[in-house]
């Protein structure tokens, strides 16, 4: 390492030490800004990793293709050709000629001239087989053609592929650069932000110099934020496309490689097939589809052809036979002839040549191109922003909120016990007839309701009162007792005859409701009958859904509002003393302190009507100008 580098390293180290000191002091005094490592970072980090891996993967593929094109295929053919050349030298017409062979022929000719009995010329004693020679030569020429074609094809293939992969890699590099730029911008942004926050923390009023600094910092922060968001947004929009294009690219490359390989194998196979057919190497006797012999057939054919010759050599040539018969019997296996050192060397070189390269994606199972490439924000938060998980890393929150630190002020409304609700009566639509109703009706605090009518609170959305909706016994309104209620109301109205307007309106309400009656109310005794006429009871049973009730309540409330509007009664506004969660459908829930406007109080109409201040009123809790919730409220809660 050079001195300069060392120096640099040292200063870097120094600064980092300083940094940590600063940060430690920060953590002691103030809340330190941690790097806001959010889900964007996570996602982009993921992409970055995959992209850089993909890049190296593509380069590797290109290099392997180049090797295959320039070396492997060429070498294969070259070796094949050389083998045939050797075969030709061994078996061909001019086989086993050597330098100066002509001298021998010349000498033989001279010798021959002196002899009276002609001798066989050594050339003729070679027992050459013409067909073997032609086979070899043909094979060689077809090989040469094949070599030419295939190496050329592969050359083109490799070049075009390489061109494209380089192009692709350039794009990926650009993307990676952009990511880098983004990260840098982000760091800058955070740094500036940090500086600002440091300045802001100074309790003493800032000096003018510092103020200036703050201002410049703030403006640069804005600038940086703008740049950062710009790049970040761009990346976020680009990256999925990059990945999908890369996917397409790899897919097509795979196809090309596959097709190229298929083509090459096909060409070689066809060439060999043609050659073998021409020279009758194929098994033409059998099935034409199966003419290419299996390896077993090849072996047996070869054995058939070669065994006699081998026997001849080994038994008739005494030089060989006499010497070491045991050597001849041992099977020769070429496999282990190379020395271990050579094997070692081969292994090493092979490793260099055949160096593997896999794309190590972040997602090992699904690879780069998957549809699941998204970051779970919750997980990202846990991993990167959770104060407990990476406490030793870059994130040093000075104050970790502990469970004990959290003080939840107890609600002061200690007496939670609300007064007893005013009695509700009349659960008439239960299947049981209520014989006691008549007795109850006097105490009924409920507003008299038209028979068959269910009245709802349109804004009634609290589910708490819906829970008990099916417990029919407590339903607010009855209908089997409605006739008595009606009489009650009539009584009330009669008592209040002086209030003509009220009377009129109430009558109207009443009658209009009555007009809706489709079925006459059934006497109680009928309810037990086996033959159920189409009674209200049954209808009711059928329609005791919450929705239905709410709907009916709704209609009722609408009427009440219209009525009270027209009566122009001064509406009292009461303040709730307790919480009322609402129990039945139609109840208006409210909290302590809520202002409830009483829309209709039956007390105002008839003072006799439940005069113990325990009553159900129709109240509305207003919020905003035009919005309110309406429903029954217990009078003793105010």
């Amino acid at each position, binding site marked *: 390492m050079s001195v300069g580098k060392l120096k640099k390293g040292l200063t870097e180290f120094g600064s980092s030490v300083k940094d940590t000191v600063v940060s430690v002091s920060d953590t002691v005094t103030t809340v330190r800004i941690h790097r806001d490592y959010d889900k964007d970072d996570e996602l982009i980090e993921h992409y970055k990793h995959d992209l850089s891996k993909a890049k190296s993967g593509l380069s590797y593929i290109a290099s392997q293709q180049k090797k295959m094109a320039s070396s492997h295929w060429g070498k294969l053919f070259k070796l094949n050709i050389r083998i045939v050349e050797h075969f030709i030298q061994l078996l061909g017409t001019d086989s086993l000629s050597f330098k100066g062979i002509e001298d021998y022929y010349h000498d033989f000719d001279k010798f021959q001239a002196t002899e009276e009995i002609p001798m066989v010329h050594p050339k003729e004693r070679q027992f050459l087989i013409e067909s073997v020679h032609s086979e070899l030569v043909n094979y060689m020429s077809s090989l040469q053609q094949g070599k030419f074609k295939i190496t050329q094809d592969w050359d083109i293939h490799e070049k075009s592929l390489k061109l494209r992969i380089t192009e692709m890699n350039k794009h990926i590099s650009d993307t990676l650069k952009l990511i880098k730029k983004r990260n840098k911008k982000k760091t800058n942004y955070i740094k500036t932000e940090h500086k600002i926050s440091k300045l802001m923390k100074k309790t003493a009023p800032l000096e003018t110099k510092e103020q200036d600094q703050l201002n410049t910092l703030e403006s640069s922060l804005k600038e940086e934020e703008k740049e950062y968001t710009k790049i970040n947004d761009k990346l976020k929009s680009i990256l999925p496309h990059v990945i999908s294009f890369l996917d397409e690219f790899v897919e097509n490359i795979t196809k090309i490689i596959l097709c190229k390989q298929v083509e090459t194998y096909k060409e070689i196979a066809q060439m060999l097939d043609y050659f073998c057919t021409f020279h009758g190497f194929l098994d033409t006797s059998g099935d034409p589809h199966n003419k290419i012999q299996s390896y077993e057939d090849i072996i047996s054919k*070869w054995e058939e052809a070669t065994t006699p010759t081998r026997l001849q050599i080994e038994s008739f040539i005494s030089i060989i036979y006499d010497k070491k018969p045991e050597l001849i019997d041992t099977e020769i296996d070429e496999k282990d002839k190379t020395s271990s050192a050579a094997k070692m060397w081969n292994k090493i070189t092979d490793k260099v040549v055949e160096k593997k390269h896999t794309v190590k994606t972040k997602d090992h199972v699904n690879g*780069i191109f998957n549809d699941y490439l998204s970051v779970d924000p919750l997980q990202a938060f846990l991993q990167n922003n959770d104060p407990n998980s990476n406490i030793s890393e870059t994130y040093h929150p000075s104050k970790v909120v502990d469970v004990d630190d959290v003080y939840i002020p107890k609600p002061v409304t200690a007496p939670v016990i609300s007064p007893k609700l005013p009695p509700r009566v009349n659960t008439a639509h239960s299947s049981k007839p209520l014989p006691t109703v008549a007795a109850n009706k006097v105490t009924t605090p409920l507003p008299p309701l038209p028979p068959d009518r269910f009245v709802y609170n349109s804004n009634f959305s609290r589910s708490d009162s819906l829970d008990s909706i099916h417990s029919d016994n407590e339903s607010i309104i009855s209908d089997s007792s409605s006739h008595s209620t009606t009489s009650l109301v009539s009584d009330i109205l009669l008592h209040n005859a002086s209030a003509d307007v009220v009377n009129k309106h109430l009558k109207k309400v009443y009658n209009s409701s009555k007009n809706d009656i489709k079925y006459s109310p059934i006497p109680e005794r009928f309810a037990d009958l086996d033959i159920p006429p189409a009674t209200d009871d049954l209808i009711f049973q059928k329609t005791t859904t919450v929705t239905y009730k709410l709907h009916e309540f709704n209609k009722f409330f609408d009427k009440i509002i219209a009525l009270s509007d027209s009566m122009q009664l001064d509406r009292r506004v009461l303040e709730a003393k307790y919480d009322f969660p609402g129990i039945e459908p139609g109840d208006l829930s409210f909290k302590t302190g809520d202002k409830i406007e009483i829309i209709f109080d039956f007390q105002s109409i008839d003072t006799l009507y439940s005069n113990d201040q325990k009553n159900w009123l129709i109240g509305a809790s207003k919020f905003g100008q035009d919005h309110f919730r309406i429903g029954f409220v217990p009078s003793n809660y105010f």
Partner: protein
Amino acid sequence: MSWNGLKKAINRAGAQVMLKTGQIESSTDKEFEFEEHRYRAMETTSTKLQRELKHYMESLRLLSNAQINVGESLSSFYGASPSSELGADKSTVKHSELSQLYYDVVKDLSEKCFTDVETPYNQTVLNPVSRFNSYYVEVNEAIKKRARKQIDYDALKSKVKKLIEKPNSSDAEYETKLASAQSDLQESEKTYLALNDQLKDELPKLVNLRIPFLDPSFEAFVKIQLRFFTESYEELNNLQMKLDAKTREDYINGKLDKKVDDVLVKMKELNITG
């Protein structure tokens, strides 16, 4: 080496020097020389052939390894989901599975086809050639022996010749010396000629038998290659057939390259650097 053998070797070394310098006339046999030359030519070529045949297998392996590596790289883009389950029975392939299937096929090719091809190749091509080459050891020994005997013979011949040319009558043992030398000469001539004749007879036989011996190996060599490439082609073609017909057509028309280019253009349109 026995004492006798050592003495012989020393004598022979002297005689060889004298032969080289021309003090002893060496006997020549043109016919044998011719055969030996042919034999030597065969020896060198077939040794080379053996080496090349070995290399051939290696280069085939290198090639298929390169294919595996490419396949692996390609499939690793798509992660390590168990590809054996994918598309095994299906007639069509989703593209994400393609590279994995490709990898599998290539791997299979090298594992199955390669081991398949190795045994017959060794048995019918490589081993026969090396067996043939193993004969050379014996033959070479015989030729060397003949050469030794020839030196002995030549040395004795010149010795007898000298004795005859310069009769030393004063030496009482001249006659016996001559006689023993002549009998030695006769004996060495006999052994030399026997060896010489045997070689002259058998070398051409061996050389001629090379054709029936090696030609089947050549045939097997070609046939094995045919089988290997056809098998590989079929395996790969099966996979290719699973691709849609359009892909194949596109490849033939060179449209696949264009598709890749299209992707590149789209990539460019993203305007990453801008």
